[in-house]
């Protein structure tokens, strides 16, 4: 059995002090739904565990200035139950409901999800299309666009002596529609074979992002540029798919083959764009339902 020393810290400064002292030998513990499994599987073997759940100012969801702040300790269940999320960013409510199951979501944090950075992480496509950024504290304070946060499978730009404080999502003043679609092997708890989020604002700015089909979650910028300013129709949907697929590079694994992922990415993208567009126009499916 792997042994470690356990610290429960009450402030960010205390966490940072331990991190700078122990460096790579330490691991931050939030909900533990990834970390505990990784330790059991011997993928990581920390000598020191820094439990941050006692840091009160990392909790909560609130509007600050011109953005919505989601603290590092906020769980997917808290996001699902927050009125402010349903009101401002119902797509994040929708995406959070696709993560794991209630008993895991009650513990799993959104920030832990992005810090683990597995390619199939369900939160990333939505954070990408909402232009979220990541608040990081270490030797200096950083605010990093979520698109620059991921470096590879299970790799982020976080330094060993840094901690994520929370996520910022810029408040949207325009009318918009958005959604997240996750394809799993079956309904219920499974990691994504393909995940796609889209966003359409009333001035016809489009945003598209995928997970599980590239080493990191990705935006499909060429496809977005192609759609910009255009009213969506079936021809456009057919034309945009090959452009979007250029942004991804799926692999074959136990959950799906590369070919299956490529094909379904196109199918789901069309479905997602249509649903976002319909939601923008006020006649789309209600938020939260499974659009697969």
């Amino acid at each position, binding site marked *: 059995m792997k*042994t*470690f020393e*356990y610290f*429960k810290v009450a402030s960010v400064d205390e966490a940072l002090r331990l991190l700078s002292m122990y460096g790579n030998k330490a691991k931050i513990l939030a909900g533990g739904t990834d970390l505990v499994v990784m330790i059991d599987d011997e993928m990581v073997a920390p000598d020191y565990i820094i439990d941050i759940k006692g840091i009160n100012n990392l909790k909560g969801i609130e509007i600050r200035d011109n953005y919505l702040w989601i603290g590092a300790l906020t769980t997917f269940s808290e996001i699902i139950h927050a009125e402010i999320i349903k009101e401002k960013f119902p797509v994040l409510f929708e995406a959070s409901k696709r993560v794991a*199951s209630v*008993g895991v979501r009650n513990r799993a944090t959104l920030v832990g999800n992005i810090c683990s950075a597995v390619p199939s992480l369900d939160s990333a496509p939505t954070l990408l299309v909402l232009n979220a950024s990541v608040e990081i504290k270490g030797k200096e304070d950083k605010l990093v666009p979520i698109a620059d946060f991921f470096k590879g499978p299970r790799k982020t730009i976080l330094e060993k002596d840094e901690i994520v404080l929370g996520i910022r999502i810029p408040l949207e003043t325009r009318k918009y529609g958005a959604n997240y679609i996750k394809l799993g092997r079956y309904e219920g708890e499974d990691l994504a074979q393909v995940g796609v989020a889209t966003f359409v604002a009333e001035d016809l700015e489009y945003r598209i992002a995928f997970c599980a089909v590239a080493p990191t979650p990705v935006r499909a910028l060429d496809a977005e540029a192609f759609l910009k300013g255009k009213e969506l129709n079936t021809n456009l949907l057919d034309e945009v798919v090959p452009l979007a697929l250029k942004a991804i590079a799926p692999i074959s694994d136990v959950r799906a083959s590369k070919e299956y992922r490529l094909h379904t990415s196109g199918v789901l993208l069309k479905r997602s764009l249509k649903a976002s567009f319909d939601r923008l126009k006020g006649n789309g499916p209600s938020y939260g339902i499974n659009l697969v």
Partner: protein
Amino acid sequence: MESKEIKFKLNGKIVRTEVKPYDKLLEVLRDKLGVKSPKYGCGRGECGACSVLLDGKTVRSCLIYAVEVDGHEIVSLEGLQANGLTELQKSFLKHNSFQCGFCAPGMVIQVTELLRENPHPDEEEIREYISGNLCRCTGYNPIVDAVLDVIKNK
């Protein structure tokens, strides 16, 4: 590694116990404290058999180190039925909802949380809440029927 004394509320009573930092809550409950309703199924969060309520929320006790619950409250099935079977449990019995029963404590815990949040969930919501609780015997329908029945009478 050093042991640490933790203190938490377990099924209404304050308990103190010595744990190693890497002891899982599930092991401590079962092997040290004699609370046997949470079961070891997968040990990795996927089956729900080890579910308990932590501060009122269903969690996977196989994914929590016991030290993490210091100062918190844990309720297991033993706590829920301290004063006799709950209406939900009676409905499970009536509908013959379990065969081997291995998933039963987790199901009861998860549905108890659901009914506290929403006393009148629809079938879809019930299925969503138990989607992380695997049952290898029943095919789930008798479980859903039992829940639908108990909310009809509320």
